[in-house]
């Protein structure tokens, strides 16, 4: 039976079920499967290995304490962890208290990123899409995502109108989406 927007990744379901049952072995499985995603995202934002490791610990412990925050029926754990990690790392970068509760991070229709091979393929594909973008568009997207800049900060930094920045960022995200729909 096929399903979408409720697609279950069996490995994710097993991990989250284990976490809910208090199984510390599930935490080890979680780490082995997804620590590379979490660490890489945190390191890209923070640029510091020690700080990235701290964020990794924090994100995984948050899920241990509150495994119900991730719903296995609504997308991949890798995607969810990537978003939560990026948000936490940006908070850390900007030295602010966490602004987004992990329970409020809801994704849908994420592609299957269940294993190392899928993650590697996705990484390659995303780099390809980013590489094909106009430099100004790629720059706007990266400043917003990896440096946590607001659209007005980006407009100020680049000297571009606010509306142009908004358009570039949305078009960049949609280009990524389309690349994974084909």
């Amino acid at each position: 039976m096929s399903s979408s927007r409720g697609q279950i990744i069996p490995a994710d379901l097993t991990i989250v079920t284990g976490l809910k049952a208090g199984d510390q072995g599930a935490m080890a499985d979680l780490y082995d499967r997804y620590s590379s995603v979490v660490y890489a995202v945190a390191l890209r934002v923070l640029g510091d290995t020690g700080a990235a490791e701290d964020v990794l610990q924090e994100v995984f412990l948050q899920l241990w304490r509150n495994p119900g925050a991730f719903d296995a029926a609504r997308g991949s754990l890798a995607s969810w962890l990537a978003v939560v990690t990026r948000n936490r790392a940006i908070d850390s970068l900007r030295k602010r208290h966490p602004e987004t509760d992990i329970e409020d991070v809801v994704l849908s229709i994420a592609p299957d990123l269940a294993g190392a091979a899928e993650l590697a393929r996705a990484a390659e594909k995303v780099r390809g899409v980013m590489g094909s973008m106009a430099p100004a568009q790629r720059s706007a997207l990266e400043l917003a995502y990896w440096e946590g800049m607001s659209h007005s900060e980006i407009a100020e930094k680049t000297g571009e109108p606010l509306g142009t920045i908004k358009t570039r960022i949305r078009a960049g995200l949609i280009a990524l989406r389309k690349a994974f729909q084909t």
Partner: protein
Amino acid sequence: MSEHEQYAEDLALYALDALLGDDRAKLDQHLTACAACRLELERLRADTALLAMSAMGPRPPQRARQRLLDAVAREGRAPLAHDVSRRPWWGWLGWAATAAVIVFALSLWQENALLRATLASASGRQAESARQLEELRKIAAPIIEPEAQRVTLVATKTPPQPQGKAFYLRSRNSLVFLASNMPALPPQKAYELWLIPMSGSPVPAGVFKPDAHGSGSLVNPPLPAGLEAKAFAITIENESGSPTPTSPILMSGAGE
């Protein structure tokens, strides 16, 4: 420009936490009332997760694994109040009426577990929860195991007809939809389920493509909280889904 188009660019910024001030407050207000924009926000968040994948490469130092597991061992089990998920994972299980039974059974189990938490010791509570979970798994096994046979019985000499079953629990914002004998679709197209509210426009409730046997499912698609359903309907839309129906209704049904 439609209202949704007006917010399209702000939604992308919102997904990146790059929208601030009045614009964010205005969009927050709109999101409370607009299911289509909430759905698009979830999609955009998934898009941002793709962007994150471009960072893949560096791996954490070896010590990080043990450090985490030591912290978990020190911390022990999470407080029970945090164990209760907002959307139960077994919500995706399901086949025909049994799916609804499982969802309800689980709800009862969760509430039962919460009550027990006030009475039982931490260790006793965990053991009891695990036992109950195992019982639920046993009940669900014929439904979730891939090798399980799934058979739809119809009157003799009756050709199989497309059929959809929706199980909707408004109080938990939980929806399970199961379809069978669905015709194959043209490329780039998918079936989209619509929740028809008591008033107002149809609300998108997920897209699916049937497998080679014509079966498909949707589990807990994003829906506005507490929405009362007058009926459900199916249309054919682009595979990425549509915020509003753009083709004739193929199947529909009201509450039994």
